[in-house]
């Protein structure tokens, strides 16, 4: 069934482009079938799965690589499926209202469906390599989603940035998976977590996995791609931010932390440190955004940091709080993004300096925004408050020493910032006159068209759920508890509660709300401080200068290595020959026995003649002279063949040499008589040195190679078999036309191809002359 649901996503994704042409925006309702069916099926499984019995399905794929299509629905996977498919189905319905009919919508719906399926795969996969496959599929599909409005340069740049950052992280993660999988002896996720491997190498692998998770979940210093990804249409942003893409990293950290956090000393300082830094940075940045969507994007960065702190600690209470926060965040962030979509759709702006009095015009939307933002800020009676209480409670009792206190302080400050930017969102978007002092043109608000009710319903649904779950925690408690219990059995015993009594955690919550309210009241001061610090170096700047630097480096390397000069390329190749095989030759200069100077005085004399002719060919000034010297070399070599006992070779050589000289003459009669001196990049001395080196190398090689013979020559058999098997006495001829006839066939083919090439080259020239 699990595989079937994934297949349903794939089928609908493929069918969507065709459907989109007919149905227009209604194609989203058809595609909603896939996440809808998944959510419905998951609901039927919930009772058993949340009690701790997982539903699994294994299809062998590449058994040799340990790669199975292993799917597993346990409590935490169910929690994620509820978000991915539950929120997904609602967002598909919302998209039907958000988009006006336009070309390419079907393709977009298809990619969105494929993305939903990939994300589903990430949370269901029980094999590290399979997780990686789905993980990269989410990277690719999110690239297409972010870059949907491909006529905009900013959208293309944002999409490229997202895929470069998450793709690089994904590769690091793959390496980490391989290290961890090899150390564990299995790639099964549940198997590894049940019996985690230890040791320094595994630690390195975990760091690589964390790099992948941090790029995906936009942790410092990889956070910058997420706000830029706002170039995507709002439903996509809502989906990416609330339920899917960015939660993939959190998901992975949550899976790994209970098994590995205690065993590796670096884990908690690294993961929780990054989480706190991300939470603070995101919250601080969110406070100075004027674009509502960008404000939410930085808010997501901040909340992701919060989640990483909780699920990354590997402590049962915090794991439980993290699971609660994942659910709460999915609901309120989806609602907030949908609100931004509605505002953008109706008012055609998202600038909170321009928007004014929108709350009176669309009170329903404003109420949804207020509830969702309040949940994010941790106001009591809402789901967000419950998760934040649980987080404070867990951090207070975590016994992590100074680091734990720092983490608690960071989370409290981050929550204060969260309250402040949440208020900024609601007041700026729907209040009257917020931020007008900054100046941003004529206010927009009172005369905006009201949204269609069906457009608001999905967002309202999430707001209602937030309230209901906040008032009656028992409704979500099984989901959160079952999810946390699947990560860490001890974490499943905790419960969400509306009232814990007068505890230190409650005090921190009150402190958070009070400090947050102060920060909102002093918004003007905050903006001034922000403006003063704006010049600080940012990770986005580092990214772009790294990209520019990479291009420059590539240019430089190209300019040096690929300078366009054929002699230089050849020189490099030859020097490599001298450096590598040449050095190897020097280390084993064992000369063979039985070396003679020459077979006869004649051989020495002829060799001298050949050498003289070759040198003459090299230094001749006239073309004809060079060709005649070349002929001299050829005829001399023919004589050497005779002396060596190879009359067939000598005959062939004579024939070929004569033909070659004729062809040379035919061509050279067109060319100038003398060689033109030309500009050289390689100096004369360099060329002579390289040539001399090659000569010495070949001579030494021929001597050493001849001495390295260990086996009997195969020729003995040829000599014996020539007459009885092939009926020929000339053994060389028999080899060519009988024993190795296929070689000769190949040789003939080469000659035919060369002849065809020559004919067409000459003919092409002739045609041009005729036309001229």
């Amino acid at each position: 069934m699990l595989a079937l649901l994934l297949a349903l996503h794939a089928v609908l994704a493929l069918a969507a482009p065709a459907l989109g042409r007919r149905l227009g925006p209604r194609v989203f309702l058809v595609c909603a079938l896939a996440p809808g069916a998944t959510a419905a099926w998951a609901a039927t499984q919930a009772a058993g799965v949340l009690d701790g019995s997982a539903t699994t399905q294994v299809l062998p794929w590449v058994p040799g690589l340990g790669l199975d299509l292993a799917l597993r629905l346990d409590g935490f996977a169910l929690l994620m499926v509820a978000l991915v498919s539950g929120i997904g189905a609602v967002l598909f319905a919302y998209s039907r209202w958000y988009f006006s009919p336009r070309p390419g919508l079907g393709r977009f719906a298809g990619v969105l469906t494929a993305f939903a399926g990939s994300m589903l795969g990430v949370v269901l996969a029980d094999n590290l390599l399979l997780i990686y496959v789905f993980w990269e599929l989410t990277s690719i599909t999110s690239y297409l989603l972010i870059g949907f409005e491909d006529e905009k340069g900013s959208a293309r740049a944002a999409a490229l940035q997202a895929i470069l950052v998450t793709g690089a992280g994904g590769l690091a993660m793959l390496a980490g998976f391989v290290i961890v999988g090899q150390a564990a002896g299995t790639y099964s996720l549940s198997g590894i977590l049940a019996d985690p491997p230890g040791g320094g190498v595994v630690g390195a692998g975990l760091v690589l996995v964390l790099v992948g998770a941090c790029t995906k979940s936009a942790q410092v210093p990889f956070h910058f791609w997420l706000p830029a990804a706002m170039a995507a249409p709002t439903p996509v942003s809502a989906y990416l931010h609330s339920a899917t893409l960015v939660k993939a990293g959190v998901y992975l950290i949550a899976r790994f932390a209970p098994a590995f956090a205690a065993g590796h000393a670096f884990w908690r300082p690294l993961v929780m440190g990054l989480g706190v830094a991300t939470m603070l940075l995101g919250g601080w940045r969110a406070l100075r955004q004027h674009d509502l969507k960008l404000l939410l994007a930085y808010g997501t960065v901040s909340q992701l940091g919060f989640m990483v702190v909780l699920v990354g600690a590997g402590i049962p209470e915090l794991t439980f709080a993290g699971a609660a926060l994942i659910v709460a965040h999915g609901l309120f962030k989806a609602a907030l993004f949908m609100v931004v979509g509605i505002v953008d759709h109706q008012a055609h702006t998202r600038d909170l300096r321009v928007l004014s009095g929108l709350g009176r015009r669309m009170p329903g939307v404003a109420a949804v925004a207020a509830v969702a933002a309040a949940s994010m800020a941790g106001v009591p009676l809402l789901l967000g408050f419950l998760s934040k209480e649980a987080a404070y409670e867990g951090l207070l009792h975590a016994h992590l020493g100074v680091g734990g206190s720092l983490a608690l302080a960071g989370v409290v400050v981050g929550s204060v910032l969260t309250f402040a930017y949440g208020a900024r969102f609601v007041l700026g978007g729907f209040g009257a006159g917020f931020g007008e002092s900054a100046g941003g043109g004529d206010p927009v608000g009172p005369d905006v068209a009201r949204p269609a009710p069906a457009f608001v319903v999905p967002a309202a649904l999430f707001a209602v759920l937030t309230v209901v779950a906040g008032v009656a925690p028992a409704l979500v408690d099984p989901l959160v508890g079952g999810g946390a219990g699947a990560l860490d059995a001890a974490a499943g015993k905790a419960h969400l509660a509306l009232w814990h009594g007068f505890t230190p955690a409650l005090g921190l919550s009150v402190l958070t709300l009070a400090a947050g309210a102060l920060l909102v009241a002093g918004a003007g001061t905050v903006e001034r401080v922000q403006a003063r610090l704006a010049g600080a170096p940012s990770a986005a700047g580092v990214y772009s200068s790294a990209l520019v630097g990479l291009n420059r480096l590539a240019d430089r390397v190209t300019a040096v290595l690929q300078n366009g000069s054929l002699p230089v390329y050849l020189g490099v190749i030859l020097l490599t020959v001298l450096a590598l095989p040449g050095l190897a030759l020097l280390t084993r200069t064992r000369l063979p026995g039985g070396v003679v100077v020459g077979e006869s005085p004649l051989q020495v004399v002829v060799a001298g003649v050949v050498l003289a002719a070759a040198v003459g060919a090299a230094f001749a000034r006239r073309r004809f002279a060079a060709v005649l010297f070349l002929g001299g070399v050829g005829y001399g070599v023919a004589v050497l063949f005779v002396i060596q006992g190879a009359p067939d070779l000598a005959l062939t050589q004579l024939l070929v040499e004569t033909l070659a000289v004729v062809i040379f003459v035919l061509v050279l009669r067109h060319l100038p008589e003398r060689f033109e001196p030309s500009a050289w990049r390689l100096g004369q001395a360099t060329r002579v040195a390289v040539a001399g080196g090659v000569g010495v190398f070949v001579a030494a090689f021929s001597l050493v190679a001849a001495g390295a013979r260990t086996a009997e020559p195969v020729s003995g058999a040829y000599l014996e078999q020539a007459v009885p098997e092939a009926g020929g006495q000339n053994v060389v001829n028999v080899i060519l036309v009988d024993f190795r006839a296929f070689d000769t066939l190949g040789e003939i083919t080469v000659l035919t191809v060369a002849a065809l090439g020559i004919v067409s080259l000459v003919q092409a020239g002739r045609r041009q002359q005729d036309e001229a």
Partner: protein
Amino acid sequence: MILVLALLVGALYAVGTYLLLQRTLTRVVIGLAIMGHGANLLLLLAGGRAGRAPIVDGPGAGPFADPLPQALALTAIVITFGITAFLLALAYRSWLLRSDDEVEDDVEDRRIARLVRRHEENDS
């Protein structure tokens, strides 16, 4: 093992390499042909000492020369000839189009190098 042939092979390779590193296509072709002669001799040299021509019941006495390297060299001679002829056709074509037979630098590669130089000048 025949020293004089080994030295000659090395010398032919050296001269061939020298000519290959030139820019005139005619010289490059000549260099390739000379290197080809060196290669054929190298093959023959690998067969060991000289001997009677490998013809069963042929004239002469003593052991046969190794026939296998001879067969290989025979093939190589013919292939070298094919390549030489093809390169000469290319040189002819080059002359028809541009009235010379120079091997020019790759234009695109030179453009990239110029680009880098310009960037560096801008930086400094």
